[in-house]
């Protein structure tokens, strides 16, 4: 039993999108811009050529925030969205009715329709693939050339993520909504 979370040293992100590709490859996410479990948000460079403010370009890698009080889980009428034993928010495709209520409830726009099963899908921290095979890294973490992501057990005081959260300041996205995300952005 673990309580998985992820810390993101987002200032290291170079927007290479290797994480997006690795996620699609590992988890069999269909091609197409609308079908993604993870993404890199980018601020456009401010200013006009040649006076561009290069420093204004910022990248914010993101995905399902694996909330402890997940709005998507609360609104799901059939318990298709559930917390697994490791606190990961997952979808039981047999129970999903494709009402898309969870897509509207998620404050992070982290859900999409998987057109093979016609159910709503999302990031599962590679629970069905890498974690199921006994590996302890996610595909996005494993492939990142600048080590943006650190995945691990938040309940294990000796884990790398616990150490990072103890020693580095961090914030969560839309924390005011009370969703208690388990993705932490390191400052």
């Amino acid at each position, binding site marked *: 039993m673990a309580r998985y979370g992820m810390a993101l040293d987002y200032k290291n992100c170079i927007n290479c999108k290797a994480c997006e590709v690795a996620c699609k490859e590992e988890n069999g996410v269909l091609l197409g*811009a*609308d079908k993604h479990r993870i*993404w*890199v*948000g*980018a*601020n*456009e460079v401010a200013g006009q050529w040649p006076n561009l403010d290069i420093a204004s370009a910022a990248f*914010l890698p*993101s995905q399902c925030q694996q909330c402890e009080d997940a*709005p998507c*889980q*609360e*609104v*799901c*009428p*059939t*318990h*298709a969205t559930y917390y697994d034993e490791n606190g990961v928010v997952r979808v039981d495709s*047999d*129970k*999903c*009715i*494709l*009402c*898309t*209520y969870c*897509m*509207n*409830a*998620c*404050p*992070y*726009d982290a*859900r*999409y*329709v998987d057109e093979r099963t*016609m*159910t709503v899908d999302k990031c599962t921290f590679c629970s069905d693939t890498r974690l199921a095979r006994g590996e302890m890294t996610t595909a996005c973490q494993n492939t990142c050339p600048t080590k943006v992501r650190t995945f691990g057990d938040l309940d294990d005081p000796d884990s790398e993520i616990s150490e990072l959260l103890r020693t580095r300041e961090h914030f969560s996205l*839309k924390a005011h*909504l*009370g969703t208690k995300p388990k993705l932490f952005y390191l400052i």
Partner: protein
Amino acid sequence: MNIKNYIPIKEDISFNFKPTLLSIIIALISIGLIGLYLFGVVNFIQHGHHAYNVTREHPWGFLVGAYEFFVALAMGSVVIGASGIFYDIKVIKPLQKRLLIYGLLSLFAGFTAFLFEIGHPVTMIIYTAISGNVTSALFWLGVFYPLFMLFTLLTFISYTQNKGPIKLFAMLAIIFANSSVLTAGSIFGLLNARLFSSGIFYQIEFMVTAILGGIFLLTLITVLFNREDFKDAIIALKKVSISLLSLLLIMYIVRYLVGIYGNVPGKVDAINYIFHTKNFIIFELGLGIVFPLFVSVFGKRNNIGLFGIASFFGLVGIMFSRINLVNGVEVIPLQSMMTKVYQSVPSIVNYTPSITEYAIGVGAIGVFIFFMFLAEKILKLD
């Protein structure tokens, strides 16, 4: 068991109708709408959800709005009809049976739209029953709808048979109609991430517009079929509509002012956007609230004809209020950064319903008229 012992079925069922100009026009419109509905359904069967213009950012579309419109009519009709029975309101008596049956039929018409919005309706029935999530408003709709239908039907049967605990059934029908419409509003009100709808505005708005919808529907039927015996009821309900329309207008003004002066990011943008669209200004506010209110206040007390026209536009306004709600909920993107290469940072999520969505949503009105036609021909409602 003979069903005629419980349901007042006519002895000589005939589907003939007097070929007046009005009845022919209504019949042609209904057939056209049903044809449109079937076209939409066939398109959906061929292409599935690809036939819709809903997206990841705008997952709910026109059909959710159409469905919520019929829910409003259903609950409003039953609340008025069952209140007439429970409180012994004599003036509503000639309408009571119709109100109860129309309420049920409107809900069924709503289901004909909702059926094609939900991806897996059969799975929904099974897993809502065996794996229901009590924190979900959608689950509670699944609880309240069957109870609403049950007690509305029991009220209808016991009222026509004049036996059984009629008032108890009527009270329970009112309670579950209100529970259903409040829960339908809560589906939007409990979306904390969507500031346009989160809060209690839409629960109250749904209740108010539900009753208004019931009044408008009855007025329209009274005018179209020239039912002299309904006129006293409509005159009484017209007074109720003045209060409700005034309340609605005040609610909208306050909502706009609070939204603008509150200046909450995400909320103010959505309110600014929706409240400045033609759909809102002309249809929802102008035709749906201001015009019926003006007619109710300044029209002659007995001029049902003009109120009938206002009622038609009132129903159009309620339909647009649902569409504007669904659009307003989703119009502001939840991601504020560029997420696709070559796509600029989105400020508004654009959505225009597809032909298939229009066909099913608008065509469901034809299905509703067809249901009412069958009810008039098969049941003894007078």
